[in-house]
């Protein structure tokens, strides 16, 4: 897939995964890399940016004798995800059109 396209989808994927529950960096990275082919080091800048934009927040919780940082989606993050979904729905219609998958075809 085109690198530029992946970039745009990355934010949406992260936000979407977080709606299913709080999680931590490594686990989140694994989930994303299972889904699309990006370097595992791509995630840190994305997470950091989403945090400074207020779309997600972090908290620390103890895990086997050390602190682990968890990510949680915020209200505005959920709002952003809804926007992404709307955009993707439009994108899907276009993809369907190009690939001839439209049922009414």
């Amino acid at each position, binding site marked *: 897939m085109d*690198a*530029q396209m*992946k*970039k*745009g989808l*990355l*934010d949406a994927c992260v936000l979407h995964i977080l709606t299913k529950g709080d999680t*931590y*960096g*490594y*686990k989140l*990275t694994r989930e994303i*890399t299972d889904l699309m082919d*990006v*370097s*595992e*080091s*791509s995630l*840190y*800048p*994305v*997470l*950091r*940016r989403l945090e*400074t*934009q*207020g779309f997600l927040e972090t908290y620390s919780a103890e895990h*086997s004798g*050390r602190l*682990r*940082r968890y990510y949680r989606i915020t209200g505005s993050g959920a709002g952003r995800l809804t926007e992404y979904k709307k955009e993707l729905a439009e994108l899907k219609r276009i993809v369907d059109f190009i690939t001839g998958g439209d049922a009414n075809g």
Partner: protein
Amino acid sequence: MDDRIKSFLDTLAANLDGLAEDEKKEALDYYEEYFSDALEEGADPDEVLSRLDPPEKIAAAIRAETSIRLVHNDPGLKNYSKLVRSAHIGLTRPLSVLMFSLLIFTTYSIAVILFLCTVISAAAVCIILPAAISEALKIPSMYIGEMAGTIGMGVFASGIFILVAFGFYMLYRPLIRVSADLVFKMMKKGSKNAGSAAEVHRDIQGKTVKRRTGKFFRAGLIITAAGLAVSLASGLPVKLFLIFNSMKPADITVIKEEFGTGEASGISIYTEHSNIRLAEGGSENIRIEYEKADWLDYDIKNDNGRIVFTERSNGRLPLFSLVSLHENRAGLVISLPSGWKPDSVDLESRGGTIDIESGAFPVDAKTYTGTINLKVPADGGSDRIPPAISARTQKGTVLIRDKTSGASTGYGTEYELSSQGSPTIRLESARGNIILSNTQR
């Protein structure tokens, strides 16, 4: 901890030097925790490392993200420089280095110019406002309207400069932002790293900046409008407008004086910027008709057989020394009885025009910026001795029947017309033109 992982973290730390301490710690903590979690889940260190980019590249991406965020939060040269410093490391190909250098050079040049313009405009506000107030304080307190008008005009001009400064500032910030985005794109080119930061950042940061600058802009508009309202109410701008467009002032008091030829043998006139006209005929007496504008004062007396007229400012107009460089269309007309032979007629005006339409010599006329028009009646008559004329101007030109005349000298332009007789007309203007027509030979 595994040696390879430790060396990875060390390299990362070394490459993050120069970043804000908390940003650096944040990133290192993240990767430390990342490895702990990976190993805990039984992953092989080699495999984990192979799935990550080299630490130098990771560090570069983090630096870029951090600095572009800084630029978007506060688009100034300082943060831009940070971005540029973190960016140049990632460039290797000669062409991209060249493009990069060009972009940076252009951005810096424009930014510095815009920044200077902002500073100069802001400085102008700091100069104009105190200057207007000090000028207003010089006006006698009975002219309260002019005082308010002067301050109002100062406030208006300050408001304009605030808006201009604001305009330059508004250009400066997006310039830095756009250039930063370009730098960011250059860095990201060819890299697998994600981040369409530029676009995303804009939609949240833009709003807060807009709100703040919007307030500033409104303040500038209010100041400008208030200054304009006050000054217009005082009528001062209208007065200045009339003067600078060579139109007759609205409030004029006409003053008439008459002197018998027996009482006076000479005339001395000085005006600040009211026009002077020396005319001939109509009466047996020397008649002086003065259209007094309300910002001027005058004094007329017979000083041992010499009529002396002096004009001065009554302090009502601000910056009078500047204003009086321009002619005041209200003027002074001196009508001489025909055939009267004066000892001398001295006419001087700083900014006013002097028109000489009389055959009474000798005449001495002098202005600083005003024009001098000499029109000797063509039907002068045979009993008149033709005048000897000497005209000189430093910066202006001498025009005789619409033709440029005179010789260039050390002084400026000088023109001489000699005759056998002694009565002469001496004309001198530092900056104005001297125009001669109907001159008899």
